[in-house]
Structures are given as C-alpha cells and as structure tokens.
C-alpha cells in the first residue's frame, strides 16, 4: 500500500480534474467519485488533500461515512 506524506497528499485536492483524497486516522481515502466531494470540497468548508481526522470529530456524521470509500494508502507520520 502506498505511503504519502502530508505534502504529497495535498496534490490530490480534487481540483481541475485531479483526484480527491482525504486522510483520517492514518488511512487515505479516495472520494473522487462522491457527489458530496465535487471539486474537492465537502459542505464548503472541508477540503480534499488534507488530513481530516480532527474535523471529522466535529462533523454531523461518524467516520463510517468515509469507510465506504476505497483506501488508497497510508499517511506517513
């Protein structure tokens, strides 16, 4: 499984046809095909290419939502 640094993850921001990846608890998920992640943005304030572990704790849904998406790799510590 591929390992990405925080900087490498930033490239997958979902903008201009790029893939949209988000990290949570060390896993990297591919949310490119999600209706709710169009253009790398979710609910306006959450951005692809970032580690969303902290933001997800405050979200009005649990992390199971992310678990529906394919895991593309791990976030390098």
């Amino acid at each position: 499984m591929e390992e990405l640094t925080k900087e490498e993850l930033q490239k997958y921001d979902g903008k201009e046809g790029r893939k949209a990846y988000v990290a949570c608890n060390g896993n990297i998920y591919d949310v490119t095909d999600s209706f709710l992640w169009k253009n790398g943005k979710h609910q306006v304030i959450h951005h692809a290419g970032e580690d969303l572990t902290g933001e997800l704790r405050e979200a009005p849904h649990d992390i199971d939502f992310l678990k529906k998406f394919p895991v593309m790799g791990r976030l390098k510590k």
Partner: protein
Amino acid sequence: MAKVTREMVEKAGLNVDEIIELLVKNAGAELTTYYYYTILRANLIGLQGEGIKEIAETARIEDRNHFEAIVPRIYELGGKLPEDMKDFHDVSACPPAALPEDPTDVMAILKVLVEAERCAVRGYTHLCNITAGKDHRTYDLALSILNEEIEHESWFSEFLGEGPSGHFLRRGETSPFVSKFLK
C-alpha cells in the same frame, strides 16, 4: 444586498461567502428533492405504497417551502442563485433522491426517502453549528428547517421498522416551523 446585514455577519468572524455557498447548496438540495420526490410520490402506489404517499407529499411540499425560505437569505447576504439550473442541480448539498431501479419496491423507495432526509438533517445541523451565536438570522432559518427535516426523517424511519419516532403525520398547515419565513 442588505449591507449592514452582511457587515454584522462578517464582524462576527464568519466567512460570508462560505455561508452563501452553503445556502445555495442547500437551496439546490431542496429544489432538486422537491423534483425527485415528485417522481417518488407518483410511484408510491398499491397496498404498500399508498400508505406512505401522504407523508411523502408533505415532505415534498415542505422541501419546496424550504427552498422558498432560503432564497431571500442568499440575496440579503449579497449572493445569488446560479443562472443555469443544471449548475444549481449539480451543486446540491445532497445527492439526487433518484427512483430505485425497481420502482415497485416500496422499501427501496423508503430508503431513498430516509437517506435524503438524513442528508438534510446533517446539512442543517452543520449550518446551525457554523452560524450559532454569530449569524442569528441564518441560524434561525437553518434551525427552523432542521426541525422539519427531523420530523421528515422520523416519519420515514418508522415505516422502515426502525422503531417509534414519537411523531405523527402533519395535521393542518404544512411547515409549522418555517412558515414565518414564507409570509
């Protein structure tokens, strides 16, 4: 645009353009849901479907009311609706509540309905969380809609056998919480 209205929200430390974008996305979700629910309601027929038709209709009309209630707030804050309706559909805060592959499968229709309502409940909770104590009018609007979305969710969840919700179908006027924004 209502200049001071916008200024007050900015002064409270909120990014007004983000609030407008969220309002547009939610207005999009309401109008598209109104449209998709029209198709779902038309397919709620037969011994099983007929019993659900009435609450599906109430939820449909109230979603249209939610659209009507949100739009003025967008313009007050200096925003606008997308000119192309196709764009409006595509920025919706919730995925399309599309008719299931087998339109005679009432349980599948119910799942679409409950998921749409759950998306709305999450979306307005998110908007309330962001605006609480800062943008009072958007908060009041989002909370009023949230109160109705919670009832929509509970109606459909009961039919799915998820247990009692404590709610009864609407009697009298629609939108008991949102109607003050429609006058």
